[in-house]
């Protein structure tokens, strides 16, 4: 019994460098050898709602895709952007890229260039990238009232009047759906408050895990139709899109997030184990101190 107690005390007072190494390995090994850990991905009802909402859009519909994330949150949000684009392109839906964050420009450029060629989509006809304007919620309000006053040209400097797919687009009411890829402020909440709720345009979101509790009240009220919550949400959406693409007999590369779920799962288990060991050690030490 004493030996077990000693082991727990040692486990409860590990040096932080050892913890870092264990956490590092728990992430690294599943990333390098994903075939070692095969985990089933179960779509949550919220992810399923997002998928169903997008899936019921018709060919030629217009979707506003807003990029509100940067390099720090790219691993969580970018796989969602890729999966959403695949889904929209497969259904021949027109995509309009906007960015509320300066970094969003780069994220949108990368996402469009990663997917568009595979689906043979033409810039200006099937998708357009309008880019970033400073102002946060004021930009959203501007998009809600008149896009051209804010965006005279697209990201490449081409006048909106010269872009074929911008012909009939004046403000947010010309879109059939809005999807916000959000990592913070300004983001999904502001889209609800300043554009989608007042103008009654359906909105869905994909956000980081830490934002989920902030966004969920809007999801519960149906002001946001479903939510892709962090990397698990991205993996769930990828699995739904892959199944849909298979149905449509479209082949493609598998998504990134699904491959990362093993790493995240193992890392979470390791952290939980650390918490448990830390508490057992805490109780044993406290008992000893009281006796001593």
């Amino acid at each position, binding site marked *: 019994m004493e030996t077990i107690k000693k082991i727990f005390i040692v486990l409860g007072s*590990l040096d*932080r460098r050892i*913890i*870092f190494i264990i*956490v590092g390995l728990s*992430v690294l090994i599943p990333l390098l050898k994903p075939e070692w850990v095969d*985990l*089933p*991905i*179960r779509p*949550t*009802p919220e992810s399923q709602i997002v998928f169903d909402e997008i899936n019921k859009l018709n060919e030629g519909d217009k979707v506003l895709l807003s990029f509100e994330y*940067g*390099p*720090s*949150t*790219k691993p969580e949000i970018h796989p969602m952007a890729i999966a959403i684009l695949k889904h929209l392109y497969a259904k021949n839906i027109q995509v309009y890229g906007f960015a509320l964050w300066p*970094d969003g420009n*780069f994220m949108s*450029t*990368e996402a469009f260039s990663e997917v568009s060629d595979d689906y043979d989509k033409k810039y200006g006809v099937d998708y357009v*990238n309008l880019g970033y*304007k*400073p*102002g*946060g919620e*004021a*930009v959203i*309000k*501007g998009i*809600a*009232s*008149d896009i051209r*006053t*804010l965006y005279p040209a697209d*990201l*490449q*400097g081409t006048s909106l009047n010269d872009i074929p797919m911008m012909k009939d687009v004046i403000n947010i009411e010309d879109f059939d759906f809005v999807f916000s890829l959000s990592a913070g402020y300004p983001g999904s909440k502001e889209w609800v408050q300043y554009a989608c709720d007042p103008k009654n345009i359906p909105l869905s979101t994909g956000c980081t*895990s830490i934002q*989920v*509790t*902030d966004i*969920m*009240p809007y999801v519960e009220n149906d002001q946001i139709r479903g939510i892709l919550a962090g990397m*698990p949400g991205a*993996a769930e959406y990828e699995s739904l899109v892959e199944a849909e693409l298979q149905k449509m007999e479209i082949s493609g590369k598998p998504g990134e997030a699904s491959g990362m*779920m093993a790493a995240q*799962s*193992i*890392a*979470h*288990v390791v*952290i*939980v184990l*650390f*918490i448990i*060991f*830390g*508490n057992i050690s*805490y109780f044993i030490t406290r008992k000893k101190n009281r006796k001593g």
Partner: protein
Amino acid sequence: MLLKRQIPLMIVIGVGLLTLFGNFINNEAVRGFVDNDATQWFDIIASFAIFLGALNMLKLQLIKIIKKQKNWQYSILAVAGFAFAIFAGFFYRGANFITIADIQDGQLAIVSGIIAEELNETNPYDIKTKIMGSQDEYEIDKLFMTEGNAKLFMEKLTPFVGVINLKSKPWGAHVQTKGSLFYWMFINMITPLGATMFALLAFFVASASYRAFRIRNFEATLLLVAGIILMLGRVPIGNLIPWWVVSIMLMFGIGAIAAPFIKERKILLGIVSGGIIIFIIFGTLMGWNQTPPALLSIPIIQDWIFAFPAMAGSRALMIGIALGIVATSFRIIIGLDKSVLGG
């Protein structure tokens, strides 16, 4: 004082009232101001704010270096990074590309082959089709960071084409174009650095929760139990945790919550271990190995925590914040709160 306090205050009050009441007044001019003009003013001011912010950052970092304040060495990196970004954005474009036209008779296959080799394309026929399909001139689908590299490639093509031009993407658009120095900097420097900073959180969270997440009282226990369930329930591994593990966790959780109220430790141990045994026997007899109840599924418990306690807390916070914003905005609009004017 008039210029510093009274006039700015009048502007704040005027614009605040107009924007607030603009939503309730059905007048074209007022609506136009609230929906278009005011938002454009905001955009212009926000653009200046970025400029001011950059200058302020530069000033602070330079003062730190000159006065050799604590950790001034890092400020050199900050200033160097700023200078490099300015250089890549305003002085060095990159993003050079080549256009060709008037390909000499019978040389199309050779030109397609050279281009395909440069682009690492396996099928030169695709390039040939694209060249033949182009109306005036054909833009080779590769961007060169330096003019030198572009010219080296041009030398290979020059003997076979009538017109060959070296061009660059326009200023401004170059920032978002692959092959520009700015784009290279963003993708190869800012992106990995940003991702690294965020990824480090995993290590700190692990270390901090290991040291600080202790069952000290009832509230801490609730937080810990909810935290563990959320951590496991949000990831696919949560689906694989069998019902009996969840029931053991549940009994430990009940034990931890009851611990402060039961002085005799042996009784507590008896309740927890007895509960676990009863739970497992009951579950086995009820056939939970085949069809476990929803109550003992980690993802379902996690969904419930999100849908009820977390949602209630989140809504309470939101309502509190909204009321605070209303009160603060009202104080600013009627001129009671002058903190927005600075000083």
